[in-house]
């Protein structure tokens, strides 16, 4: 398997990792990277990419296997030894302390000292030096919490470089970036490659891989299914290897038949906890029988909008009516009783209680209702039957309804959430990042269910950072930028990604009249 090519800077051999809950994340995985290349690591979610990289970076300890750097076996017990060996990692979630300055974040762990005291001036100097060397533009004295996402990512990359990283692991670096920021990142990555750095690039986005990577390793179900030159493979090839079968990338759905208005949002404004305006005078309507997409780079007000529409966040300016009922002062339960439901963005935080059984996770929105209770006690038989029915109908892979939900894979957890939220036959549902981080099979299933729900007559708001998803799945679509609606497409068929990118970055903005069309009920 592991051919001893001389220029392999990194070889991971027969890595096996079992998590405490018994989940086998890596099974005898072999992985090798050549010096100075950009190496793609792909696979469905749960295929073991993140685990493999955590093993490499010393966050997880493998149960068996070994790691060779430049041909020599090394023991990596923790991130600091990884750093010592010249491995750096840029995580999906930024590893920064927001209230500290850029310079402080840069030097943490390797603080310059003046006697025994911390030397802030030196830290600033060090930051400037490394930024100059790699041609990054950054203000060392700015507080991290004030920086835009792209800048934060630069801090992350510089942080790794300052520590002498020769091998740089980037975990889905483009997930949070705008197309323009992505382009900028790629330029910088190529520059790093030119300076001799090796980059491991984890991504779901096959197009990006084709664009920037030299070689690719594909993981499936915890095993390595092979490595190859990127040039030799088509996107379809990669996709097939990842899932082992043909996945329809295009979403199949029939023409929408929008009916009456279900949701009306008027002149909605809101500020976040730092006092920054996060929603500015937003108005739109959503009708029964349509999937209404909300696109935009993350952090442009979509999350706050979702929270307001589902009652999680109070609002004070503007109005939100569901079936004509103002929800400003309604409790979440009252809002749900208007036949609404919600697939949350962060399913582990909002969508489930991990230690509780699947069965009990399935009834959290309805457990109190009359039909589930009888003289003070819950109707166990009925709840059990309903749970079994949902598990079957939504193809949840598990050991049965009593299993704690935390033991399931991400995709199956999402299926439980979807089962609960969809099985109540909502008139209005907000679906936020429905397929983020779940495997292709589950993604396909969830998307189909969304279309099915639309055809049954629900009004659906779909928020997704996956441009492909939001464009393919939606019937009509708005684009949000800095808390405002900057574009409205009554029909999603003819939009190009380039056009979307321009709206998403605020380069272009439609006229108020064009946007005004999103209001169907004047």
């Amino acid at each position, binding site marked *: 398997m592991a051919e001893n090519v001389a220029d392999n800077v990194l070889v991971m051999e027969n890595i096996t990792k079992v998590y405490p809950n*018994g989940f086998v994340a890596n099974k005898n995985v072999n992985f090798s990277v050549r010096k100075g290349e950009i190496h793609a690591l792909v696979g469905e979610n749960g295929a073991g990419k993140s685990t493999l990289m955590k093993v490499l970076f010393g966050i997880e300890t493998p149960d068996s296997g070994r790691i060779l750097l430049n041909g020599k076996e090394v023991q990596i017990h923790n991130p600091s030894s990884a750093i010592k060996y010249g491995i750096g990692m840029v995580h999906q979630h930024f590893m920064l302390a927001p209230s500290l300055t850029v310079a402080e974040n840069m030097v943490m762990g390797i603080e310059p000292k003046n006697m025994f005291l911390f030397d802030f001036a030196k830290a600033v100097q060090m930051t400037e030096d490394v930024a100059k060397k790699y041609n990054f533009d950054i203000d060392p004295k700015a507080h991290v919490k004030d920086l835009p996402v792209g800048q934060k990512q630069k801090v992350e990359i510089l942080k790794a470089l300052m520590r002498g990283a020769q091998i740089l692991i980037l975990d889905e670096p483009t997930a949070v970036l705008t197309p323009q920021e992505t382009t900028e990142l790629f330029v910088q990555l190529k520059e790093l490659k030119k300076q001799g750095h090796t980059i491991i690039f984890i991504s779901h986005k096959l197009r990006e891989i084709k664009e920037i990577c030299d070689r690719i390793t594909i993981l499936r179900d915890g095993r390595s299914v092979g490595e190859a030159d990127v040039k030799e493979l088509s996107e379809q090839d990669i996709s097939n290897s990842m899932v082992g079968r043909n996945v329809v990338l295009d979403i199949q759905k029939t023409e929408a038949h929008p009916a009456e208005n279900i949701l009306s949002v008027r002149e909605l404004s809101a500020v976040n906890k730092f006092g920054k305006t996060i929603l500015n005078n937003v108005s739109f309507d959503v009708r029964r029988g349509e999937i209404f997409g909300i696109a935009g780079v993350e952090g442009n007000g979509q999350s706050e909008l979702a929270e307001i529409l589902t009652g999680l966040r109070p609002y004070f300016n503007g109005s939100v009516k569901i079936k004509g009922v103002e929800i400003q002062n309604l409790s979440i339960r009252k809002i749900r009783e208007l036949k609404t439901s919600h697939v949350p963005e962060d399913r582990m935080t909002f*969508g*489930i*209680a991990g230690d509780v059984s699947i069965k*009990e996770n399935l009834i959290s929105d309805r*457990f109190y209702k009359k039909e589930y209770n009888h003289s003070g006690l819950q109707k166990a038989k009925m709840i059990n039957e309903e749970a079994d029915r949902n598990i079957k109908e939504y193809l949840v892979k598990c050991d049965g309804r009593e299993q704690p939900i935390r*033991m399931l894979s991400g995709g199956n957890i999402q299926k439980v959430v979807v089962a609960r939220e969809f099985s109540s036959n909502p008139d209005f549902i907000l679906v936020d990042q429905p397929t983020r981080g779940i495997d292709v099979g589950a993604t396909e299933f969830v998307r189909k269910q969304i279309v099915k729900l639309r055809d049954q007559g629900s009004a659906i708001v779909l928020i997704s950072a996956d441009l492909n998803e939001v464009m393919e799945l939606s019937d009509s679509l708005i684009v949000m930028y800095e808390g405002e609606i900057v574009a409205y497409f009554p029909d999603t068929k003819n939009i190009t990604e380039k056009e979307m990118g321009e709206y998403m970055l605020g380069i272009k903005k439609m006229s108020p009249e064009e946007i005004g069309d999103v209001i169907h009920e004047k």
Partner: protein
Amino acid sequence: MKNKQSYSSKTIENRFEIFRVIVAIGISLLVALLLIMFASKQPLNALKWFLAGPIMTMRNFGNVLELFIPLTFGGLSIAVMFQCNQFNMAAEGSFFLGGLGAAMIAVGVKMPSVIHAVVALLAGALFGVVLCLIPAILKVKWKANEVVSSLMLNYIALFFGSYILQYMLMDPDAGYIASHSFPKSARLAVIIPKTGVHMGIFIAIVMVVLTYLFLYRTKWGYAIRITGQNENFAKYSGIGVGSTIILSQIAGGALAGMGGATQVLGMYTRFSWVSLPGYGFDGIIISILAKNNPKFIPLAAFFLAYLRVGADIMSRRSDVAPEVVSIIQAIIVVLIAGKMFLDTYKHKMIVKNSQRQVKEEA
């Protein structure tokens, strides 16, 4: 294949939990034995009384059952509150006030037998509720840390209770600060002659069953558990998190208050508590031992009662101070609460199991 694998890992997890508890208890007893060896001139004699004393006579065993009653109440009270993820320490104060409330009814009003006791118990529960509610309301309304506020409230409850006792309940003929003695109608009858085991033991058992049903078979219990497991999820699902937290503290306060009332009416002839009884804090140990599940609370309470009575007998019969028990308790709490305790061993079991699966698959 995959199903079978995760199924077995789940079974391992359950079996392992029992093993862990046993090892934790074993280690703590071992430490206790070592300490006794150190402290005693006749360690074997001390050990004999410590371990076997409680079952050597019916009366000693009766003492275990007597202590079992308040410990069960303490455990239940804490379990209900911990299930909602509220570290409300006011159970201690509620226990005290519950005793006070029961005493007020017992000496303050005349009623026929049984009814008198029942009303006194309910009054105790009510007093308990009032106190446990305060940290909950402060938490829900202003997000005030319930650990700190409840610890402070315990002192306030104590001083408030002493004030009531001294200025309203005190029997001036008594040689110390104590209420008038309780009429027979309010007392809980002794059920095992020559011991102090009283009707309260039935009340405790009934409350165990009711608490279990409440937590695992009613919508309120469901809401409490979901809120405790993941407050965000509860909120998202439309559960009124604030009211659920308050409900759980009401239930916990009622249990603690009723426990205090049962203790006072069963074990005392007058109310004379001038310090906190400690059963609320004991409840923490018991609840942790029982994994916050009412099903296991009687077992845990019995275990602790046995240890304490054993230690008391030991101190009467030998030269070892009974406070050695407090060291045992601390070790048990830490080891059982320690999720990673023996984890490597468990992990090895799981890995071995999984590797077998991998081989089978290959």
